[in-house]
């Protein structure tokens, strides 16, 4: 049997969810026995590959790069999982949503800064009006809430999916 392809992605988040992935400890060994991790902060791949079976997405969709990447990922992934509250609800990144982008950047880069006094434009993607949970941008197949989600919950979902079953998360996860 060929190995499944698993990818992880880090959008607008703090990387805490990826830490939680690493916290799966020995389950990680089980995972790599059955699957190749083909993309993500944990491996060295520049381009998101075609034909991925499972992608775990950490972080909210906050800027143009996030948007393009997640659309590409959705097109190339069978099962897309929103991992953690930022991906599931928008969480902390979405706390900026009541504030217009321009005012937000002014506050951060002009009022709150000692040098430069202007928002960066080169080499950084434009912010979207709102930081959005992933499912408001593309179809999401499964949500694992938590900030970060418990390693056990991630392990459970990944192993169930690799075994071809639908994970049942009632009672196993919580927001926050």
């Amino acid at each position, binding site marked *: 049997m060929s190995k499944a392809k698993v990818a992880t992605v880090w959008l607008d988040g703090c990387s805490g969810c990826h830490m939680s992935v690493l916290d799966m400890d020995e389950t990680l060994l089980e995972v790599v026995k059955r699957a190749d991790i083909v993309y993500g902060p944990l491996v060295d791949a520049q381009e998101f590959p075609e034909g991925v079976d499972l992608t775990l997405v950490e972080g909210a969709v906050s800027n143009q790069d996030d948007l393009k990447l997640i659309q590409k990922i959705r097109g190339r992934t069978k099962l897309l999982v929103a991992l953690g509250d930022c991906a*599931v*609800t928008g969480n902390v990144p979405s*706390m900026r949503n*009541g504030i217009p982008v321009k005012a937000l950047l002014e506050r951060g880069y002009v009022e709150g800064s000692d040098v430069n006094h202007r928002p960066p434009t080169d080499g950084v993607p434009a912010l979207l009006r709102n930081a959005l949970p992933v499912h*408001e941008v593309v179809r999401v197949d499964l949500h694992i809430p938590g900030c970060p989600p418990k390693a056990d919950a991630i392990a459970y979902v990944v192993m169930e999916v690799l075994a071809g079953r639908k994970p049942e998360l*009632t*009672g196993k996860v*919580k*927001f*926050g």
Partner: protein
Amino acid sequence: MPQKISLRIDGELIHTAGQRSILEVALEHGKFIPSLCHMKGLASVGACRLCIVEVAGVGRVLPACSTPVQDGMAVTTQSDKLRRYRKIALELLFAERNHVCAVCVSNGHCELQGLATKLGVTGVRYPYTFPKIGVDLTHKKFTLDQNRCILCTRCVRVCAEVEGAHVWDVSSRGVGSRLVCELNRKWGESRNCTSCGKCVQSCPTGALAEKGFAVEEMTKRTEPISRLTALRGVRP
């Protein structure tokens, strides 16, 4: 003395006094019916619609908190439809305001968050509203964070019915409804607030909290209030 009646809840035969709500009787017999606006000792308002149950022979679902038990009634507390509707109600609550559990004082002790876990709400299908609403930190002891408010009106009722101060009420209507202190005063400028803290203890989320607590630190207790009302004979 109310007469004794018999009814079935999820098939179990139960004998109880009449003129009580299905919710009270069911909880007393160890059944699980989710609810957020109900609090023992306060009047029922039927606002959260989570306690809906099915009653044999009645075409529509009924709120357990405001439906009295009747002799011969057969109540179902769990069904696919009820689960589906309860989940939608929870999702709508999450979508309405900014419930950022990760940075909430009540994280881990919040009834809304707890019910989401229990009912299997792992994501919200409806688009988030992301309203821009404020926080009132003017009271010397307490905080009001409208971002976490679910308009259950427990605070309104506990203040009016138990404390007798009626500091809280709801202004405006529809999605514009907001909890207001007196005639839309800052809480710190309230003339009636006795700073008793019953509203804070009754609040199911982190909307009302005590100052000086950080994320996850705010725990609340409603039983003393319920006991008090029972002792006073306000409500059973």
